[in-house]
């Protein structure tokens, strides 16, 4: 019944449009002023349609533009790293960019093609694999923090454990020269983490920035991770500090894979 009614309305609308177009066509040929007026209206409609089409095309080209911007951003970050190395700087400056302070890290831009955000064991699929130079146990970072660790590598894609995974722990430092502890996801909020194993005698200030320590072979030092927000003493010996992360994991798309070129040598030494 409803379908019949819809068909009937469509037929009525189609016949109405046909009849109106026929009348306008006849009117256009019977009066000069009307001809000009109708032509002008047609041009306005064409211009609006063209404008709308362009807007839609522009909207769908935004993804490509974003990818291009991410590539350019990565290239510029790389240049900054090279200039710093050339200038002999060993510490990251105030700008929020991933720093290669020792010159032993290789950076590869990548995109996240799948991101799990709803469990205690979140994972990511990265859109690059061993053909692009990705290796297992490489770090994943952005300018605003550590994102995860590559766990398995395929030809074109890699499987990574997110920082928001109960099994991931990274070495972090309060300030650039402060005490070092272990940073884990708090398991509850999207931007909360716990920095543990901080000695009891350290004087803490809320709002201090937490950086990567550089003690891990996966991540370069001095990547800003978040700020301290509260603390509690555990077993009377160490502090457990709440950290509010800078990175918003729900909107992640562009990341940088960081690979320590001396990792194998370090691991070999550790085994010996």
């Amino acid at each position, binding site marked *: 019944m409803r379908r019949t009614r819809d068909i009937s309305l469509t*037929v*009525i609308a189609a*016949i109405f449009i046909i*009849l109106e177009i026929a*009348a306008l066509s006849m009117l256009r040929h019977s009066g000069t002023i*009307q001809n000009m007026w109708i032509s*002008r209206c047609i041009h306005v409609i064409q211009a609006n349609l063209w404008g709308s089409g362009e807007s839609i095309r522009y909207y769908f080209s935004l993804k490509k533009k974003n990818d291009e911007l991410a590539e350019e951003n990565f290239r510029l970050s790389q240049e900054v790293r090279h200039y710093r190395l050339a200038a002999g700087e060993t510490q990251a400056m105030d700008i929020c960019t991933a720093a290669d302070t020792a010159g032993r890290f290789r950076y590869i831009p990548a995109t996240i093609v799948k991101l799990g955000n709803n469990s205690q064991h979140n994972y990511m699929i990265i859109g690059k694999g061993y053909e692009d130079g990705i290796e297992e146990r490489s770090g994943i970072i952005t300018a605003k923090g550590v994102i995860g660790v590559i766990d398995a590598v395929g030809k074109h894609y890699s499987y990574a454990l997110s920082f928001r995974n109960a099994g991931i722990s990274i070495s972090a430092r309060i300030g650039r020269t402060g005490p070092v502890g272990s940073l884990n996801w708090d398991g509850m909020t999207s931007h909360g983490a716990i920095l543990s194993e901080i000695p009891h005698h350290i004087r803490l200030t809320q709002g201090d920035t937490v950086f990567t320590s550089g003690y891990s072979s996966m991540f370069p030092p001095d990547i800003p991770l978040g700020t301290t927000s509260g603390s509690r003493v555990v077993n009377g010996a160490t502090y457990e500090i709440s950290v509010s992360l800078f990175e918003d994991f729900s909107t992640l798309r562009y990341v940088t894979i960081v690979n320590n070129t001396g990792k194998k040598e370090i691991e070999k030494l550790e085994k010996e």
Partner: protein
Amino acid sequence: MKTAQHFGLIFLMMAAVQIIICNCFHLSAYVSLSVLPAMVLFIPLNIGTVLSMLIAFGTGLAVDALGEGLIGLNALALVPVALLRIPVTRLVFGEDVIERQEDISFRKFGAGKIATAILIMQALFLAVYIIADGAGTRPFWFNAARFAASLASGCILSMIAASVLLPDTKK
């Protein structure tokens, strides 16, 4: 069937009257007399929207061709009237009239409701007619004055036409 034939004859007669009005009665630049909206409005309700749009288009075209005017102008303005004939009838006279496909009459609905329906249709017709006739070359105040004068005179003329078109007034 008899009623339909009867209406058809009166409809043709009214179309002829409209052609005469177009050719002979040029009262003023501000007044465009037309009974066409009333003629389309009172097409029997057993005739569907599609057919009434085709009737309106054909009538408008005939008046344009035989009267002194731009070909397509009346047809352009009359087709929307036919499109909105049933919704306006439903709005003014109620759902029952549509469901039972009753004839509209002065005796049953009164002059007030009939005048309201004519006013709506006449306004729609004149809005399209005046805009298309002016083709963006005339000032707004001229179009507004023409619309008001034509609406007033057209409604009076259409009420007379309705008294001829609608069935029970002749009994």
